[in-house]
């Protein structure tokens, strides 16, 4: 099975190389048969890699420790539901998983959009007009596959054997990864990272082919949304994992690997906003193309940061030599982007100028500006230790203090724009309209601010955040209410049903509003950290510790043992206002295979706050357990906000009923088909 898997990866590499070379030659010499042959090869990469991935999973479940990767990352006692996580827990396996996801995306793109043999692009309906781009986009995807499959075959093979002997048992999975979130978080994060290759491929293909019309931007936007959705959920799940597992009471530490995932998210978010200017007004074409390029390049750069050991991170893979491969690939990718841009930049001229700074267009420009400044600040802070080492010979650390100080004001301004943007009209907004639309929400925001001040809260950032949250929520609610009220009058249905009808008639707009609500909830959850409290102390029998509104009392101490780990737990009674409300069990595990100890957090989460307990070990002299206790207000809203963002994105991805109606418009079809025929 080991050999079979290795050959499957090699076959995938050969297929990808063929697909890329044949595709390039086919497009340059306009040889249709060669292009079709390249597409088939690209399609075949996915089954080949599926076989390889299944082989690796089979070897993991068979505890085949002749394979170095499995000996390093798995062991016999590992529960089956964590064995699947072994696939992405190490450098080699996760690279194979990455390649498999990439080939899966290429497979879906080709299967969903491939021209049938013998059918020409000019026979396409407008709905399928973007399919004219699929052949070239698939060649670009094959080019990306070549790079990752080269790594899989020649730099980091998941099927390599141990140099000598076979151990009786493996080293086991890193205890930090033995959590249910680890079965979901990395695949979603990778689906996001890898997914940005698809909009990149379509965008580059459109630029190279000088594809007329706006169809290419529609398909690019949809694929960006898919990748953005996965990346968003993946990032938040990573935060949830850090919160539940790492035991420091937080969820985001501005770690280089966390930042690496956040960077393409920021540029992808900027693109999802600015693309509307291109669709509605034919503006910012160059900007959009570069945002798509930057998002893809930052995704690859993030992978490079995680895998190369360039920056130190608790989340990074072990230092390896594959960094050089990434540098070469990034250099080639940048060169291709630059060449394609300079050769075809006349194709990207704006169709309309900006008419007023009080307009939706200007709002999007400011939104993009703020997102890009945040992205630059994060990239700069992430790389500064490396830069300072080059310049001064010593690493200057850049941690949470820097990132919080720089980014909090930026993101508060972004939150303000989240509310303002949708209320601005295209082209120009009158002062009367601004006053009418903003007065109510602004008064509500000011009232919330006054209320917070009256409650004695003085930390400026949470106060401003709560006020802006009220402002944005009021604006979104107003938008839904106005539309639903008019629909309700016409259809004589209730407001709720009318709001649903309104949303389904323009999924993109109202799905976007739902995403904004999710962002607001997430911001409120983050602002809650301004009120965090923490304490720690020894907890012998009946000892008490107070944190937030809670009093903790140590009741007992218990031990357990199984094949994978032995554990010790504190039993802690939680009282609030003199009344017992819960019993919690913070514990520590000793993982036998890896000889590592891990704190198991006990978390009692409510909508208002979390009580978060960490058993930090025993005093060796007195045998008294030490307990860290954290009171984290509003943190649950971060996870709820992420769910709302996911829901909103799915709504926005659904076709609007209006879009279906527009597709039935025959004159547009004829016009666009004529344009496609020229490609």
């Amino acid at each position, binding site marked *: 099975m080991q050999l079979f898997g290795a050959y499957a990866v090699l076959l995938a590499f050969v297929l990808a190389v063929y697909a890329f070379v044949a595709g390039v030659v086919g497009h340059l010499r306009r040889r249709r048969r060669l292009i079709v042959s390249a597409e088939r090869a690209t399609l075949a990469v996915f089954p080949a890699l599926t076989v390889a991935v299944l082989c690796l999973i089979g070897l993991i479940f068979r505890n085949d420790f002749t394979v170095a990767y499995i000996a390093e990352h798995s062991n016999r006692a590992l529960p089956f539901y964590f064995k699947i996580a072994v696939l992405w827990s190490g450098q080699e396996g996760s690279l194979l998983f990455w390649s498999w996801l990439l080939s899966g995306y290429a497979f879906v793109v080709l299967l969903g959009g491939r021209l049938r043999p013998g059918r020409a692009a000019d026979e396409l309906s407008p709905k399928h007009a973007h399919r004219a781009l699929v052949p070239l986009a698939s060649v670009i995807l094959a080019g990306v596959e070549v790079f990752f499959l080269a790594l899989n075959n020649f730099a980091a093979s998941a099927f390599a054997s141990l140099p000598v002997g076979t151990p009786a048992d493996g080293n086991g999975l890193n205890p930090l990864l033995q959590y249910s979130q680890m079965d979901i978080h990395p695949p979603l994060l990778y689906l996001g990272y890898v997914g940005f290759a698809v909009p990149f491929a379509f965008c580059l293909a459109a630029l190279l082919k000088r594809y007329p019309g706006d169809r290419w931007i529609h398909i690019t936007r949809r694929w960006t949304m898919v990748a953005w959705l996965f990346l968003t959920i993946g990032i938040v799940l990573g935060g949830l994992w850090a919160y539940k597992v790492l035991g420091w009471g937080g969820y985001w530490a501005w770690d280089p690997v966390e930042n690496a995932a956040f960077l393409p998210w920021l540029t992808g978010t900027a693109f999802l906003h600015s693309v509307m200017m291109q669709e509605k007004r034919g503006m910012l074409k160059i900007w959009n193309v570069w945002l798509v390029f930057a998002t893809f390049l930052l995704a690859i750069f993030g992978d490079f940061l995680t895998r190369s050991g360039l920056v130190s991170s608790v989340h990074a893979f072990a230092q390896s030599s594959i960094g050089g491969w990434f540098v070469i690939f990034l250099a080639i990718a940048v060169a291709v982007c630059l060449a394609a841009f300079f050769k075809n930049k006349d194709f990207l001229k704006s169709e309309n100028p900006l008419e007023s*700074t009080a307009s939706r267009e200007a709002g999007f420009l400011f939104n993009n500006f703020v997102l890009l400044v945040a992205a630059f600040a994060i990239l700069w802070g992430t790389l500064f230790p490396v830069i300072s080492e080059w310049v001064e010979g010593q690493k200057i650390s850049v941690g949470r203090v820097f990132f919080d100080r720089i980014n909090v004001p930026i993101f508060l301004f972004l939150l303000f724009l989240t509310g303002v943007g949708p209320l601005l009209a295209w082209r120009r907004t009158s002062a009367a309209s601004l006053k009418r639309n903003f007065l109510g929400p602004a008064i509500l925001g000011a009232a919330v601010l006054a209320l917070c001040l009256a409650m004695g809260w003085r930390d400026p950032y949470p106060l401003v955040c709560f006020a802006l949250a009220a402002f944005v929520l009021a604006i979104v609610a107003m938008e839904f209410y106005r539309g639903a009220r008019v629909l309700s009058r016409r259809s004589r249905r209730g407001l709720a049903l009318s709001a649903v009808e309104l949303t389904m008639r323009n999924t993109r707009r109202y799905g976007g509003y739902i995403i904004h609500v999710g962002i607001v909830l997430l911001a409120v959850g983050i602002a809650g950290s301004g009120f965090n409290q923490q304490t720690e102390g020894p907890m012998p029998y009946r000892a008490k510790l107070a944190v937030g509104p809670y009093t903790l009392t140590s009741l007992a101490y218990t031990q357990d043992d199984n094949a994978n780990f032995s554990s010790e737990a504190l039993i802690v009674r939680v009282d609030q206002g003199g009344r017992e409300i819960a019993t919690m069990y913070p514990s520590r595990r000793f993982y036998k295979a890896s000889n590592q100890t891990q704190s198991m957090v006990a978390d009692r989460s409510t909508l208002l706050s979390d009580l978060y307990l960490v058993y930090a070990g025993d005093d060796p002299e007195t045998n008294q357990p*030490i307990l860290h206790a954290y009171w984290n207000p509003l943190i649950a809203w971060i996870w709820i906000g992420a769910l709302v963002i996911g829901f909103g994105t799915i709504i926005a991805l659904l076709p609007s009923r209006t879009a279906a109606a527009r597709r039935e418009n025959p004159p547009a079809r004829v016009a666009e088909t004529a344009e496609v025929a020229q490609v």
Partner: protein
Amino acid sequence: MQVRFASRPLRRISLALALLGLFTAGLRGDPVAERYHRLAAKLRCVCPCHQSMLSECSNMQCSARAQLDAAMVKLSQKVRSGDSDELILQAFVQEFGPEVLAAPPTHGFSLVVWIMPWVAAGLGLWALLAVLHYWRAQRPSAEPATAPAAPAGDGDPALARVQAEIARELGDWERRE
């Protein structure tokens, strides 16, 4: 198998007790405890976890934390003995390198890290305003500025009617579509 969870050596426990004493004192508003916390918040673990010295290290292979914990016990002593903040932080930098500081200093080469984001923001804003100015200069004057840019309702007659009705109530709502 009996496994003891004596997590760190004696120093670790000494640190916990020192912290406990300082926390307790902190509840009473002890300026020494407040100063200890203020200084500890300026320090962080030098292993890849990069956690604040007031938090638990999340890196199970951390090799530096024991030394740092010992240094933190010394920190509590130095705070009590009245050494200046700068002197105390400098002692940490000399022992563990500049990575031990939670935030880069605001002098020397480190100042660049603080300045650059705002320089970039300033340049970006300047570029943005220049583009806005250029576009406004190119604006065709003959075209009526109030004409809708995109068809209201995205081609859906029912939605267009809804938007028209809202527009009558609210002025220019339909142009936001």
